[in-house]
Protein backbone atom coordinates (compact mmCIF):
# COMPACT_ATOMS: atom_id res chain seq x y z
CA UNK A 1 0.00 0.00 0.00
CA UNK A 2 2.80 2.41 0.94
CA UNK A 3 4.55 1.61 -2.33
CA UNK A 4 1.38 2.40 -4.30
CA UNK A 5 1.02 5.75 -2.57
CA UNK A 6 4.71 6.53 -3.09
CA UNK A 7 4.67 5.78 -6.82
CA UNK A 8 1.35 7.61 -7.27
CA UNK A 9 2.88 10.69 -5.66
CA UNK A 10 5.98 10.52 -7.86
CA UNK A 11 3.81 10.10 -10.95
CA UNK A 12 1.59 13.05 -9.98
CA UNK A 13 4.58 15.35 -9.37
CA UNK A 14 6.19 14.30 -12.67
CA UNK A 15 2.94 14.79 -14.60
CA UNK A 16 2.36 18.23 -13.05
CA UNK A 17 5.89 19.37 -13.92
CA UNK A 18 5.51 18.03 -17.42
CA UNK A 19 2.21 19.83 -17.90
CA UNK A 20 3.63 23.03 -16.50
CA UNK A 21 6.52 22.93 -18.96
CA UNK A 22 4.26 22.16 -21.94
CA UNK A 23 1.74 24.85 -21.01
CA UNK A 24 4.44 27.55 -21.16
CA UNK A 25 6.44 26.42 -24.19
CA UNK A 26 4.26 28.01 -26.88
CA UNK A 27 6.16 30.61 -28.87
CA UNK A 28 3.00 32.60 -29.63
CA UNK A 29 0.16 34.22 -27.80
CA UNK A 30 -3.40 34.83 -28.98
CA UNK A 31 -5.17 38.13 -28.50
CA UNK A 32 -8.74 38.89 -29.53
CA UNK A 33 -8.62 42.30 -31.16
CA UNK A 34 -12.31 42.54 -31.90
CA UNK A 35 -15.46 40.50 -31.36
CA UNK A 36 -18.82 41.21 -32.91
CA UNK A 37 -18.44 40.64 -36.63
CA UNK A 38 -21.33 39.04 -38.49
CA UNK A 39 -19.88 36.04 -40.36
CA UNK A 40 -16.61 37.62 -41.50
CA UNK A 41 -15.16 36.04 -44.62
CA UNK A 42 -11.94 37.79 -45.57
CA UNK A 43 -9.47 40.38 -44.37
CA UNK A 44 -6.89 42.57 -46.05
CA UNK A 45 -4.55 45.22 -44.73
CA UNK A 46 -4.66 48.90 -45.64
CA UNK A 47 -1.38 50.81 -45.93
CA UNK A 48 -2.18 52.83 -42.79
CA UNK A 49 -2.38 49.64 -40.71
CA UNK A 50 -6.19 49.36 -40.64
CA UNK A 51 -7.87 46.06 -41.49
CA UNK A 52 -10.46 45.80 -44.26
CA UNK A 53 -12.93 43.03 -43.35
CA UNK A 54 -15.74 41.56 -45.46
CA UNK A 55 -18.79 39.99 -43.86
CA UNK A 56 -20.75 37.33 -45.71
CA UNK A 57 -23.94 39.16 -44.74
CA UNK A 58 -22.92 42.00 -47.09
CA UNK A 59 -21.01 44.50 -44.99
CA UNK A 60 -17.50 45.79 -45.54
CA UNK A 61 -15.82 47.14 -42.44
CA UNK A 62 -12.61 48.92 -41.51
CA UNK A 63 -11.04 48.02 -38.19
CA UNK A 64 -8.55 50.38 -36.57
CA UNK A 65 -6.30 48.25 -34.33
CA UNK A 66 -4.91 51.26 -32.45
CA UNK A 67 -8.28 52.72 -31.51
CA UNK A 68 -9.96 49.27 -31.49
CA UNK A 69 -12.85 50.77 -33.42
CA UNK A 70 -14.78 49.47 -36.40
CA UNK A 71 -16.47 51.51 -39.13
CA UNK A 72 -18.85 50.27 -41.80
CA UNK A 73 -17.93 51.20 -45.36
CA UNK A 74 -20.85 52.65 -47.29
CA UNK A 75 -22.06 52.11 -50.85
CA UNK A 76 -21.06 48.44 -50.98
CA UNK A 77 -22.79 46.56 -53.85
CA UNK A 78 -25.85 44.62 -52.72
CA UNK A 79 -25.26 40.88 -52.54
CA UNK A 80 -27.28 37.66 -52.30
CA UNK A 81 -26.51 36.79 -48.67
CA UNK A 82 -27.97 33.32 -48.41
CA UNK A 83 -26.50 30.01 -47.27
CA UNK A 84 -22.85 29.99 -48.49
CA UNK A 85 -23.33 33.11 -50.61
CA UNK A 86 -22.78 36.75 -49.81
CA UNK A 87 -19.91 39.23 -49.74
CA UNK A 88 -16.80 37.11 -49.87
CA UNK A 89 -13.26 38.14 -50.78
CA UNK A 90 -11.79 41.62 -50.50
CA UNK A 91 -8.44 42.33 -52.14
CA UNK A 92 -6.43 45.50 -52.49
CA UNK A 93 -5.01 46.19 -55.93
CA UNK A 94 -1.20 45.72 -55.85
CA UNK A 95 -0.91 49.45 -56.63
CA UNK A 96 -3.57 50.48 -54.10
CA UNK A 97 -1.44 53.34 -52.78
CA UNK A 98 -1.61 54.89 -56.26
CA UNK A 99 -5.12 53.97 -57.41
CA UNK A 100 -7.11 53.27 -54.18
CA UNK A 101 -8.75 50.30 -55.87
CA UNK A 102 -10.23 47.39 -53.92
CA UNK A 103 -11.75 44.27 -55.46
CA UNK A 104 -14.76 42.43 -54.07
CA UNK A 105 -16.19 39.01 -54.91
CA UNK A 106 -19.77 38.23 -53.99
CA UNK A 107 -22.82 36.26 -55.02
CA UNK A 108 -25.72 37.92 -56.82
CA UNK A 109 -29.15 36.96 -58.05
CA UNK A 110 -29.89 37.43 -61.75
CA UNK A 111 -32.73 36.39 -64.07
CA UNK A 112 -30.64 33.40 -65.14
CA UNK A 113 -29.89 32.36 -61.56
CA UNK A 114 -27.41 33.01 -58.78
CA UNK A 115 -23.78 33.47 -59.65
CA UNK A 116 -20.45 34.96 -58.61
CA UNK A 117 -19.58 38.52 -59.50
CA UNK A 118 -16.41 40.56 -59.06
CA UNK A 119 -16.41 44.34 -58.83
CA UNK A 120 -13.79 46.94 -58.16
CA UNK A 121 -14.19 50.34 -56.56
CA UNK A 122 -12.16 53.15 -55.11
CA UNK A 123 -12.06 53.35 -51.35
CA UNK A 124 -12.53 57.00 -50.48
CA UNK A 125 -12.96 58.02 -46.84
CA UNK A 126 -14.89 54.91 -45.73
CA UNK A 127 -17.03 55.00 -48.86
CA UNK A 128 -16.86 53.12 -52.15
CA UNK A 129 -16.98 55.22 -55.30
CA UNK A 130 -16.61 54.49 -59.01
CA UNK A 131 -17.93 50.96 -58.53
CA UNK A 132 -17.43 48.87 -61.65
CA UNK A 133 -18.45 45.25 -62.25
CA UNK A 134 -15.53 43.60 -64.00
CA UNK A 135 -16.62 39.97 -64.11
CA UNK A 136 -19.78 37.89 -63.85
CA UNK A 137 -19.21 34.16 -63.76
CA UNK A 138 -21.02 32.10 -66.41
CA UNK A 139 -22.12 29.73 -63.64
CA UNK A 140 -25.79 30.34 -62.98
CA UNK A 141 -27.44 28.13 -60.41
CA UNK A 142 -30.54 27.90 -58.22
CA UNK A 143 -28.55 26.90 -55.17
CA UNK A 144 -26.52 29.21 -52.94
CA UNK A 145 -23.53 26.98 -52.53
CA UNK A 146 -20.02 26.45 -53.84
CA UNK A 147 -19.18 29.86 -55.25
CA UNK A 148 -15.44 29.53 -54.65
CA UNK A 149 -15.09 33.35 -54.59
CA UNK A 150 -11.39 33.68 -53.75
CA UNK A 151 -9.34 36.38 -55.46
CA UNK A 152 -5.57 36.58 -55.96
CA UNK A 153 -3.44 39.12 -57.77
CA UNK A 154 -0.47 37.66 -59.57
CA UNK A 155 2.87 39.42 -59.97
CA UNK A 156 1.82 40.71 -63.41
CA UNK A 157 -1.27 42.36 -61.88
CA UNK A 158 -3.65 39.89 -63.48
CA UNK A 159 -6.39 38.59 -61.19
CA UNK A 160 -7.23 34.98 -60.45
CA UNK A 161 -10.81 34.19 -59.44
CA UNK A 162 -11.90 30.82 -58.08
CA UNK A 163 -15.39 29.83 -59.23
CA UNK A 164 -16.91 26.78 -57.54
CA UNK A 165 -18.97 24.00 -59.05
CA UNK A 166 -22.34 25.16 -57.69
CA UNK A 167 -22.75 21.75 -55.97
CA UNK A 168 -25.56 20.53 -58.26
CA UNK A 169 -23.46 21.19 -61.38
CA UNK A 170 -20.31 19.31 -60.54
CA UNK A 171 -19.99 17.52 -63.91
CA UNK A 172 -19.68 20.92 -65.61
CA UNK A 173 -16.31 21.35 -63.92
CA UNK A 174 -14.96 19.12 -66.71
CA UNK A 175 -16.56 21.21 -69.48
CA UNK A 176 -14.95 24.39 -70.73
CA UNK A 177 -18.03 26.30 -71.91
CA UNK A 178 -18.92 27.52 -68.42
CA UNK A 179 -17.29 28.77 -65.21
CA UNK A 180 -18.37 26.00 -62.84
CA UNK A 181 -15.36 24.54 -61.05
CA UNK A 182 -12.76 26.77 -62.65
CA UNK A 183 -9.98 29.15 -61.77
CA UNK A 184 -10.27 32.18 -64.04
CA UNK A 185 -7.65 34.74 -64.97
CA UNK A 186 -8.52 38.26 -66.07
CA UNK A 187 -6.75 41.61 -66.25
CA UNK A 188 -7.38 44.06 -63.44
CA UNK A 189 -9.93 45.87 -65.62
CA UNK A 190 -11.86 42.67 -66.42
CA UNK A 191 -10.48 42.15 -69.91
CA UNK A 192 -9.03 38.79 -70.84
CA UNK A 193 -5.23 38.47 -70.95
CA UNK A 194 -3.77 37.49 -74.30
CA UNK A 195 -1.53 34.86 -72.70
CA UNK A 196 -4.27 32.79 -71.06
CA UNK A 197 -4.10 29.06 -71.76
CA UNK A 198 -5.55 27.95 -75.07
CA UNK A 199 -7.67 24.83 -74.87
CA UNK A 200 -8.26 22.48 -77.78
CA UNK A 201 -12.04 22.65 -77.46
CA UNK A 202 -13.79 25.22 -79.69
CA UNK A 203 -16.27 26.40 -77.10
CA UNK A 204 -13.73 26.94 -74.31
CA UNK A 205 -14.16 30.25 -72.52
CA UNK A 206 -11.04 32.36 -72.86
CA UNK A 207 -10.79 33.45 -69.23
CA UNK A 208 -10.40 29.88 -67.93
CA UNK A 209 -7.00 29.30 -66.31
CA UNK A 210 -7.57 25.82 -64.88
CA UNK A 211 -10.57 23.50 -64.50
CA UNK A 212 -11.79 20.43 -62.66
CA UNK A 213 -12.24 22.07 -59.26
CA UNK A 214 -14.96 21.76 -56.63
CA UNK A 215 -15.19 24.68 -54.19
CA UNK A 216 -11.86 26.44 -54.02
CA UNK A 217 -11.70 28.83 -51.07
CA UNK A 218 -7.93 29.09 -50.90
CA UNK A 219 -5.70 30.88 -53.40
CA UNK A 220 -2.24 32.17 -52.61
CA UNK A 221 1.25 32.32 -54.03
CA UNK A 222 4.67 31.70 -52.56
CA UNK A 223 7.65 34.01 -52.64
CA UNK A 224 8.62 32.71 -56.08
CA UNK A 225 5.16 33.33 -57.52
CA UNK A 226 4.10 29.65 -57.54
CA UNK A 227 0.32 29.50 -57.18
CA UNK A 228 -1.36 27.29 -54.61
CA UNK A 229 -5.06 26.53 -54.32
CA UNK A 230 -7.09 24.46 -51.90
CA UNK A 231 -10.64 23.24 -52.23
CA UNK A 232 -13.32 21.56 -50.19
CA UNK A 233 -13.80 17.89 -50.96
CA UNK A 234 -17.18 16.20 -50.55
CA UNK A 235 -17.17 13.72 -47.67
CA UNK A 236 -13.40 13.56 -47.39
CA UNK A 237 -10.97 14.56 -50.09
CA UNK A 238 -10.16 18.20 -49.27
CA UNK A 239 -7.21 19.04 -51.53
CA UNK A 240 -4.18 21.30 -51.71
CA UNK A 241 -2.99 21.81 -55.29
CA UNK A 242 -0.18 23.65 -57.04
CA UNK A 243 -1.78 25.51 -59.92
CA UNK A 244 -0.28 25.52 -63.39
CA UNK A 245 -2.08 27.15 -66.32
CA UNK A 246 -4.25 25.02 -68.56
CA UNK A 247 -4.34 21.93 -66.37
CA UNK A 248 -7.25 19.73 -65.32
CA UNK A 249 -7.52 19.10 -61.59
CA UNK A 250 -9.89 16.20 -62.03
CA UNK A 251 -13.08 16.95 -60.12
CA UNK A 252 -15.44 15.07 -60.16
CA UNK A 253 -13.84 12.42 -62.37
CA UNK A 254 -11.15 11.69 -59.80
CA UNK A 255 -11.49 12.39 -56.10
CA UNK A 256 -10.38 11.13 -52.70
CA UNK A 257 -13.81 11.74 -51.22
CA UNK A 258 -17.24 10.14 -51.44
CA UNK A 259 -20.68 11.68 -51.73
CA UNK A 260 -22.58 12.85 -48.65
CA UNK A 261 -25.14 10.08 -49.30
CA UNK A 262 -22.37 7.50 -48.85
CA UNK A 263 -22.19 6.71 -52.57
CA UNK A 264 -19.09 6.90 -54.72
CA UNK A 265 -18.61 9.96 -56.88
CA UNK A 266 -15.86 8.20 -58.74
CA UNK A 267 -14.07 4.93 -57.95
CA UNK A 268 -10.94 6.56 -59.37
CA UNK A 269 -8.53 8.95 -57.68
CA UNK A 270 -5.96 9.08 -60.46
CA UNK A 271 -6.03 9.49 -64.21
CA UNK A 272 -3.44 10.52 -66.75
CA UNK A 273 -4.01 14.10 -67.77
CA UNK A 274 -5.54 15.02 -64.43
CA UNK A 275 -3.46 16.57 -61.69
CA UNK A 276 -2.86 15.12 -58.26
CA UNK A 277 -3.04 17.22 -55.10
CA UNK A 278 0.17 17.65 -53.12
CA UNK A 279 -1.89 16.85 -50.04
CA UNK A 280 -5.43 15.75 -49.30
CA UNK A 281 -7.39 15.31 -46.09
CA UNK A 282 -9.86 12.55 -45.22
CA UNK A 283 -11.96 13.13 -43.24
CA UNK A 284 -12.52 16.65 -44.45
CA UNK A 285 -11.36 19.56 -42.34
CA UNK A 286 -13.17 22.20 -44.46
CA UNK A 287 -10.28 24.33 -45.71
CA UNK A 288 -11.19 28.01 -45.73
CA UNK A 289 -8.12 30.17 -46.50
CA UNK A 290 -4.34 30.13 -46.51
CA UNK A 291 -1.23 32.26 -46.45
CA UNK A 292 2.50 31.83 -46.74
CA UNK A 293 4.54 33.27 -43.90
CA UNK A 294 7.65 35.29 -44.77
CA UNK A 295 8.42 37.35 -41.70
CA UNK A 296 11.30 37.25 -39.21
CA UNK A 297 8.90 37.67 -36.29
CA UNK A 298 8.54 33.90 -36.12
CA UNK A 299 11.73 32.74 -37.85
CA UNK A 300 10.83 29.08 -37.25
CA UNK A 301 7.75 29.54 -39.43
CA UNK A 302 9.51 31.26 -42.32
CA UNK A 303 8.33 29.85 -45.67
CA UNK A 304 5.61 27.72 -44.12
CA UNK A 305 2.08 27.58 -45.44
CA UNK A 306 -0.71 28.25 -42.94
CA UNK A 307 -4.13 26.87 -43.86
CA UNK A 308 -7.24 27.76 -41.87
CA UNK A 309 -9.98 25.17 -41.42
CA UNK A 310 -13.62 25.29 -40.39
CA UNK A 311 -14.18 21.78 -39.10
CA UNK A 312 -13.76 21.52 -36.24
CA UNK A 313 -11.65 24.70 -36.43
CA UNK A 314 -7.86 24.94 -36.42
CA UNK A 315 -4.91 25.99 -38.55
CA UNK A 316 -2.54 23.61 -40.32
CA UNK A 317 1.09 24.66 -40.62
CA UNK A 318 2.61 22.89 -43.58
CA UNK A 319 6.30 22.67 -44.38
CA UNK A 320 6.72 22.40 -48.13
CA UNK A 321 9.96 21.35 -49.80
CA UNK A 322 10.42 20.73 -53.52
CA UNK A 323 6.66 21.10 -54.05
CA UNK A 324 5.90 18.37 -51.52
CA UNK A 325 4.35 18.62 -48.09
CA UNK A 326 6.95 17.19 -45.69
CA UNK A 327 5.22 17.90 -42.40
CA UNK A 328 1.97 19.19 -40.95
CA UNK A 329 1.30 20.67 -37.53
CA UNK A 330 -2.17 21.33 -36.15
CA UNK A 331 -2.20 24.73 -34.45
CA UNK A 332 -4.50 27.14 -32.65
CA UNK A 333 -7.03 24.48 -31.63
CA UNK A 334 -7.46 26.45 -28.42
CA UNK A 335 -9.41 29.09 -30.39
CA UNK A 336 -12.17 26.45 -30.41
CA UNK A 337 -14.09 28.04 -33.26
CA UNK A 338 -14.53 27.80 -37.02
CA UNK A 339 -11.57 29.63 -38.56
CA UNK A 340 -12.55 31.41 -41.75
CA UNK A 341 -9.40 33.26 -42.71
CA UNK A 342 -5.72 33.55 -41.86
CA UNK A 343 -3.43 36.25 -43.18
CA UNK A 344 0.10 37.40 -42.50
CA UNK A 345 0.18 41.11 -41.67
CA UNK A 346 3.01 43.42 -42.71
CA UNK A 347 4.53 43.49 -39.22
CA UNK A 348 4.74 39.68 -39.09
CA UNK A 349 1.76 38.87 -36.90
CA UNK A 350 -0.76 36.35 -38.10
CA UNK A 351 -4.34 37.61 -38.18
CA UNK A 352 -7.14 35.08 -37.84
CA UNK A 353 -10.86 35.49 -38.49
CA UNK A 354 -13.41 33.24 -36.82
CA UNK A 355 -16.81 33.30 -38.48
CA UNK A 356 -18.98 32.60 -35.44
CA UNK A 357 -21.54 30.74 -37.53
CA UNK A 358 -24.58 29.81 -35.47
CA UNK A 359 -24.35 32.79 -33.15
CA UNK A 360 -25.01 36.22 -34.63
CA UNK A 361 -22.27 38.87 -34.37
CA UNK A 362 -19.76 36.56 -32.75
CA UNK A 363 -17.05 36.63 -35.41
CA UNK A 364 -13.63 37.61 -34.08
CA UNK A 365 -10.37 39.11 -35.23
CA UNK A 366 -7.52 37.36 -33.40
CA UNK A 367 -3.87 38.34 -33.47
CA UNK A 368 -1.09 35.78 -33.20
CA UNK A 369 2.06 37.44 -31.89
CA UNK A 370 5.28 36.22 -30.23
CA UNK A 371 4.95 35.14 -26.62
CA UNK A 372 8.10 36.92 -25.46
CA UNK A 373 6.90 40.47 -26.25
Amino acid at each position, binding site marked *: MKKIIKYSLIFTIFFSLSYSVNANDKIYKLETLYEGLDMPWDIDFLPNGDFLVSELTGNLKIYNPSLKKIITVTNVPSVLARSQGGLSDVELHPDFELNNLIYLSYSIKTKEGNTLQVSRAKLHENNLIDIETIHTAQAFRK*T*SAHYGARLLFLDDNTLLISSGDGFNHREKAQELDNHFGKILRINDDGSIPSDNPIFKRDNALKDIFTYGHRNQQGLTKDINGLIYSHEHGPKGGDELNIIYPGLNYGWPAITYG*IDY*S*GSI*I*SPFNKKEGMEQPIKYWTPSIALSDMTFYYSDLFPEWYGNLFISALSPGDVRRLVIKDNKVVSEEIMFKEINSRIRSIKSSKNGNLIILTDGRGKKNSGKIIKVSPNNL
Partner: protein
Amino acid sequence: MYLIKLFFSLLLAFIFSAILTSFFILFQNTIWNIFWLKTQGFDISFVVLVDSLLHDLRGGLSPILIQWGIPINMYGVIFIALFFGYFLTAIIRLIIPINSMFSYGFAGFASVYGIIFYTKMTFDGIVLISSARQLMGLLIFCLIGFFGGIIFNQLKEFFLKVQIYEKNN
Protein backbone atom coordinates in the same frame (compact mmCIF):
# COMPACT_ATOMS: atom_id res chain seq x y z
CA MET B 1 -53.81 -13.91 -33.28
CA TYR B 2 -55.18 -13.18 -36.71
CA LEU B 3 -54.50 -9.47 -36.29
CA ILE B 4 -50.94 -10.10 -35.09
CA LYS B 5 -50.29 -12.31 -38.09
CA LEU B 6 -51.82 -9.67 -40.33
CA PHE B 7 -49.60 -6.96 -38.82
CA PHE B 8 -46.44 -9.01 -39.33
CA SER B 9 -47.49 -9.85 -42.87
CA LEU B 10 -47.87 -6.17 -43.69
CA LEU B 11 -44.55 -5.43 -41.99
CA LEU B 12 -42.82 -8.12 -44.01
CA ALA B 13 -44.35 -6.81 -47.23
CA PHE B 14 -43.21 -3.28 -46.37
CA ILE B 15 -39.66 -4.26 -45.37
CA PHE B 16 -39.13 -6.41 -48.44
CA SER B 17 -40.46 -3.79 -50.86
CA ALA B 18 -38.55 -0.98 -49.11
CA ILE B 19 -35.28 -2.91 -49.23
CA LEU B 20 -35.80 -3.66 -52.91
CA THR B 21 -36.62 0.01 -53.60
CA SER B 22 -33.53 1.15 -51.66
CA PHE B 23 -31.24 -1.24 -53.52
CA PHE B 24 -32.50 -0.11 -56.91
CA ILE B 25 -32.27 3.57 -55.94
CA LEU B 26 -28.64 3.10 -54.88
CA PHE B 27 -27.90 1.02 -57.98
CA GLN B 28 -29.38 3.69 -60.20
CA ASN B 29 -27.18 6.34 -58.60
CA THR B 30 -24.07 4.21 -59.02
CA ILE B 31 -24.86 3.38 -62.66
CA TRP B 32 -25.53 7.06 -63.36
CA ASN B 33 -22.13 8.09 -61.99
CA ILE B 34 -20.34 5.21 -63.74
CA PHE B 35 -22.06 6.06 -67.03
CA TRP B 36 -20.85 9.66 -66.78
CA LEU B 37 -17.28 8.47 -66.11
CA LYS B 38 -17.47 6.30 -69.23
CA THR B 39 -18.36 9.41 -71.26
CA GLN B 40 -15.20 11.03 -69.84
CA GLY B 41 -13.04 8.26 -71.26
CA PHE B 42 -12.63 6.06 -68.19
CA ASP B 43 -12.31 2.34 -68.73
CA ILE B 44 -14.95 0.74 -66.52
CA SER B 45 -14.31 -2.95 -65.97
CA PHE B 46 -16.86 -5.39 -64.55
CA VAL B 47 -14.83 -5.52 -61.33
CA VAL B 48 -14.93 -1.73 -60.96
CA LEU B 49 -18.70 -1.72 -61.57
CA VAL B 50 -19.42 -4.47 -59.02
CA ASP B 51 -17.03 -2.91 -56.51
CA SER B 52 -18.78 0.44 -56.89
CA LEU B 53 -22.23 -1.11 -56.48
CA LEU B 54 -21.16 -2.95 -53.34
CA HIS B 55 -19.52 0.20 -51.99
CA ASP B 56 -22.73 2.15 -52.46
CA LEU B 57 -24.87 -0.54 -50.82
CA ARG B 58 -22.57 -0.31 -47.80
CA GLY B 59 -22.37 3.48 -48.11
CA GLY B 60 -26.12 3.69 -47.72
CA LEU B 61 -25.62 2.70 -44.09
CA SER B 62 -23.61 5.83 -43.19
CA PRO B 63 -25.56 8.73 -41.70
CA ILE B 64 -26.47 11.56 -44.05
CA LEU B 65 -28.51 13.73 -41.72
CA ILE B 66 -29.51 14.09 -38.11
CA GLN B 67 -33.21 14.51 -37.42
CA TRP B 68 -34.56 14.90 -33.90
CA GLY B 69 -31.08 14.00 -32.63
CA ILE B 70 -31.11 10.67 -34.47
CA PRO B 71 -28.59 9.98 -37.26
CA ILE B 72 -30.42 8.71 -40.34
CA ASN B 73 -28.80 6.97 -43.29
CA MET B 74 -29.98 6.61 -46.88
CA TYR B 75 -31.92 3.44 -46.16
CA GLY B 76 -33.62 5.17 -43.24
CA VAL B 77 -34.61 8.11 -45.41
CA ILE B 78 -36.16 5.82 -48.03
CA PHE B 79 -37.90 3.64 -45.43
CA ILE B 80 -39.39 6.64 -43.64
CA ALA B 81 -40.57 8.25 -46.90
CA LEU B 82 -42.19 5.02 -48.12
CA PHE B 83 -43.81 4.36 -44.75
CA PHE B 84 -45.48 7.76 -44.74
CA GLY B 85 -46.53 7.34 -48.37
CA TYR B 86 -48.08 3.92 -47.90
CA PHE B 87 -49.70 4.86 -44.59
CA LEU B 88 -51.31 7.94 -46.11
CA THR B 89 -52.49 5.91 -49.08
CA ALA B 90 -54.10 3.32 -46.79
CA ILE B 91 -55.99 6.11 -44.99
CA ILE B 92 -57.11 7.70 -48.26
CA ARG B 93 -58.25 4.33 -49.63
CA LEU B 94 -60.55 3.90 -46.62
CA ILE B 95 -62.43 6.99 -47.78
CA ILE B 96 -61.96 6.92 -51.55
CA PRO B 97 -62.05 3.53 -53.31
CA ILE B 98 -58.98 3.85 -55.56
CA ASN B 99 -57.37 0.95 -57.38
CA SER B 100 -54.97 -0.61 -54.89
CA MET B 101 -52.06 -1.36 -57.21
CA PHE B 102 -51.88 2.05 -58.81
CA SER B 103 -52.50 3.95 -55.57
CA TYR B 104 -49.55 2.27 -53.84
CA GLY B 105 -47.50 2.66 -56.99
CA PHE B 106 -48.25 6.35 -57.00
CA ALA B 107 -47.48 6.49 -53.27
CA GLY B 108 -44.04 5.04 -53.97
CA PHE B 109 -43.49 7.53 -56.80
CA ALA B 110 -44.53 10.48 -54.64
CA SER B 111 -42.58 9.30 -51.59
CA VAL B 112 -39.34 9.06 -53.50
CA TYR B 113 -39.95 12.45 -55.12
CA GLY B 114 -40.65 13.73 -51.62
CA ILE B 115 -37.12 12.72 -50.55
CA ILE B 116 -35.64 14.99 -53.22
CA PHE B 117 -38.08 17.77 -52.42
CA TYR B 118 -37.28 17.54 -48.71
CA THR B 119 -33.50 17.68 -49.23
CA LYS B 120 -33.92 20.66 -51.56
CA MET B 121 -35.95 22.49 -48.92
CA THR B 122 -33.55 21.57 -46.11
CA PHE B 123 -30.31 22.33 -47.95
CA ASP B 124 -31.31 25.42 -49.93
CA GLY B 125 -31.80 23.80 -53.32
CA ILE B 126 -29.05 21.25 -53.03
CA VAL B 127 -29.95 17.78 -54.35
CA LEU B 128 -27.91 15.31 -52.31
CA ILE B 129 -28.49 12.37 -54.63
CA SER B 130 -26.48 13.20 -57.73
CA SER B 131 -28.47 11.11 -60.22
CA ALA B 132 -31.64 13.01 -59.32
CA ARG B 133 -30.20 16.38 -60.36
CA GLN B 134 -31.26 15.92 -63.96
CA LEU B 135 -34.83 15.31 -65.13
CA MET B 136 -34.19 11.86 -66.61
CA GLY B 137 -32.41 10.72 -63.47
CA LEU B 138 -35.19 12.08 -61.29
CA LEU B 139 -37.81 10.32 -63.41
CA ILE B 140 -35.99 6.98 -63.15
CA PHE B 141 -35.59 7.56 -59.42
CA CYS B 142 -39.32 8.12 -58.97
CA LEU B 143 -40.27 5.20 -61.25
CA ILE B 144 -38.25 2.93 -58.97
CA GLY B 145 -40.45 4.19 -56.15
CA PHE B 146 -43.54 3.48 -58.30
CA PHE B 147 -42.55 -0.12 -58.88
CA GLY B 148 -41.60 -0.46 -55.23
CA GLY B 149 -45.14 0.58 -54.35
CA ILE B 150 -46.58 -2.00 -56.74
CA ILE B 151 -44.40 -4.70 -55.19
CA PHE B 152 -45.61 -3.68 -51.73
CA ASN B 153 -49.21 -3.91 -52.89
CA GLN B 154 -48.74 -7.32 -54.52
CA LEU B 155 -47.01 -8.73 -51.44
CA LYS B 156 -49.65 -7.21 -49.17
CA GLU B 157 -52.44 -8.77 -51.24
CA PHE B 158 -50.69 -12.14 -51.28
CA PHE B 159 -50.16 -12.21 -47.53
CA LEU B 160 -53.75 -11.05 -46.93
CA LYS B 161 -55.10 -13.94 -49.06
CA VAL B 162 -52.91 -16.37 -47.12
CA GLN B 163 -54.20 -15.01 -43.79
CA ILE B 164 -57.82 -15.16 -44.92
CA TYR B 165 -57.38 -18.73 -46.20
CA GLU B 166 -55.78 -19.81 -42.92
CA LYS B 167 -58.49 -18.11 -40.91
CA ASN B 168 -61.27 -19.79 -42.87
CA ASN B 169 -59.61 -23.16 -42.66
